[in-house]
């Protein structure tokens, strides 16, 4: 039975009835990373230094050394990332159950609102509005918040002002709701974090991190191409690197979409 299912999938992929959408940004040195106050520890940006390129360092081969923080580029947040998830079992990327690496997605489009207001807050009423059209969010689904923020770059993407970043994200209530009332597997965003740019001023601060990780759920951020996904029916493949005790990792996020 299962072999037939996979054979069907393979056939659908080959025939184009099922498409693969890459939701990942290219890892490059100039992709913005989260900024903390400078006296605090900082995430290392992505860096690549050559070991050899068919030269004296290695005559026939090309390879590089990479360095980056766990939360660089399109990346995955594990529960251990936040203090609220520190005591949970299986809370780091190396212990992440493989079953959680593949899950369906609900894509909630709030791109128009985000275009008008960089501080747009995603609320329970947005969820209610979506559920009116597409039905209740199933348990263990990803909620992907489409803002089209991924179409911006550089300064406009980070949108740092003197009072901090101004980027859209969820308010505290919707996070509590999605985690406790809907049992989602995680939240995915196009911005640098799962939280809004000004979320440090919310109560609790950084509510996406607070509620998701406190309940053993996950975050995906710096996603792109969410505009190519249907509101429902896509399947997300998100398998972070297996880093011992890792709090997250850059990863390739793929979505299967049946046309």
């Amino acid at each position, binding site marked *: 039975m299962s072999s037939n299912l996979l054979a069907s999938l393979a056939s659908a992929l080959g025939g184009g009835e099922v498409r693969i959408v890459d939701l990942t940004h290219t890892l490059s040195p*100039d992709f913005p990373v989260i900024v903390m106050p400078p006296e605090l520890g900082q995430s*290392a940006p992505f860096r690549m230094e050559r070991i050899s390129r068919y030269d004296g360092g290695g005559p026939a081969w090309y390879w590089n050394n990479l360095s980056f923080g766990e939360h660089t580029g399109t990346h995955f947040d594990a529960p251990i990332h936040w203090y609220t998830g520190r005591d949970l079992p299986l809370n780091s990327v190396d212990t992440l159950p493989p079953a959680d690496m593949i899950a369906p997605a609900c894509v909630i489009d709030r791109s128009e609102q985000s275009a008008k207001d960089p501080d747009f807050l995603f609320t329970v009423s947005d969820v209610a509005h979506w559920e009116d059209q597409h039905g209740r969010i199933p348990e263990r689904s990803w909620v992907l918040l489409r803002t089209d923020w991924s179409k911006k770059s550089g*300064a*406009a993407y980070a949108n740092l002002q003197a009072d901090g970043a101004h980027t859209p994200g969820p308010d505290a209530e919707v996070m509590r709701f999605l985690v406790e009332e809907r049992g989602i597997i995680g939240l995915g965003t196009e911005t640098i974090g799962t939280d809004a740019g000004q979320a440090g001023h919310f109560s609790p601060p950084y509510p996406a991190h607070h509620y998701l990780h406190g309940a053993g759920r996950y975050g995906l951020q710096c996603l792109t191409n969410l505009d190519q996904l249907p509101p429902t029916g896509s399947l997300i493949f998100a398998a972070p690197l297996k880093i011992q005790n890792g709090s997250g990792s850059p990863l390739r996020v793929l979505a299967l979409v049946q046309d």
Partner: protein
Amino acid sequence: MTEPLPKPKRKNPLARTNQPLLPPSSRSRKAHGFTRAAAHGRFMLQRCDECGQYTYPTRDACPNCLSSNLPFRDAPASGTLLSETQIGVTSDPYYRERMPWRAGLVKLDCGPTVVAHLHGDCGGPGSLLTLSLQLDRAGQAVFFGKPLSETPHMEDDRQLRELTADPKHRRILLTDGRSSLAPPLVQALKKAGAAKIFVGIADRWKPFDGRAALEIIEGVELVDLDLTSERSVQDLAKDIGAKVDILINTADHVRQVHLFDAGAAASARDTLDHTLMGLMRLAQAFGPVVRSRGADGVNSAAAWVNVLSVHALSSVPQFGIHSASQAACLSLSQWLRHELRQGGVRLMNAFAGPLDAEWFQTVPPPKLAPKTLADAIVDGLKRGLEDLYVGDVAKDLEARLLDNPKAVEREAGQ
């Protein structure tokens, strides 16, 4: 009268770039007493501690009393020109390109007779002169004779310009536009006649206050430069490497952590990445092209400046990681100096005390105003110096280190 130096024309892309040559550079070990004096802009001679006579050339025994106690001491720098020549022919390749060359025999008021390079505005034999010790293109100390008083465009003298790194008509790269040093340094360089000032900005997506003020200054061009990224540094060198006549590395990274803090290693790594590795990346990307342009006309590559903290010279526990990074930068700068010297390009280290800027907020005064440091750097370039100690704290530390480095170490952090 010195002819004012004309603004250099754009380079002929079909012409071969003149390769740098060096003046004769062999010296006895004792003669490096002059190297130290010239590097710091001082005028010193060997003076016998027993009979008090000044002596020259450098000796191992006093010709008057045979004492071997002949330390270098600050000496009066005035003298009278006894004789002079215009050398027209030499077998030395460096001087051959620079003939004729004016040199003279000067009787110093304090006794010895020295052979010296002469400024074009010096009068003939019998004229009174002021002498200075300068570092030549080979990094070796030489005597230079100037008229007693300033003359118009004095700094443009052909022979003097070989002994300085005057910013006039030269193109400058400041590596960190976010530094509080950047605005006053840009102003000082412009005042000194710099033709163009590239100002590096890391992470353009992070706004900063001074940006608009820098952007509107004529002759200033903001460029992407992130010293923590090899690619960023390499990319900029590809664009403007051959147009950088003076590189001023203003990058710094000051974080206060305790050695035993859990995050200290990560902080150290971060600091070293911005400072030591940043300098390393700069050296790799810009070093070769800067060195190759040491004799490239009026706006040849002339100097590389590292703004370092005096913490490089002795650790200050409150700034332990900063101290370690600066010491590492000092070591790397000496390596780089050796490499650049082969192209006739000088490397100047400006050792500064705590700047009156955010990262030294908790440090009590005296603190160094960024403008004071900027002016000192430009003055150092004009004089062709190699080591600058800028501000009261830096000068104090230099003197104390010379006196007793162990005392400096014990008293640090008290």
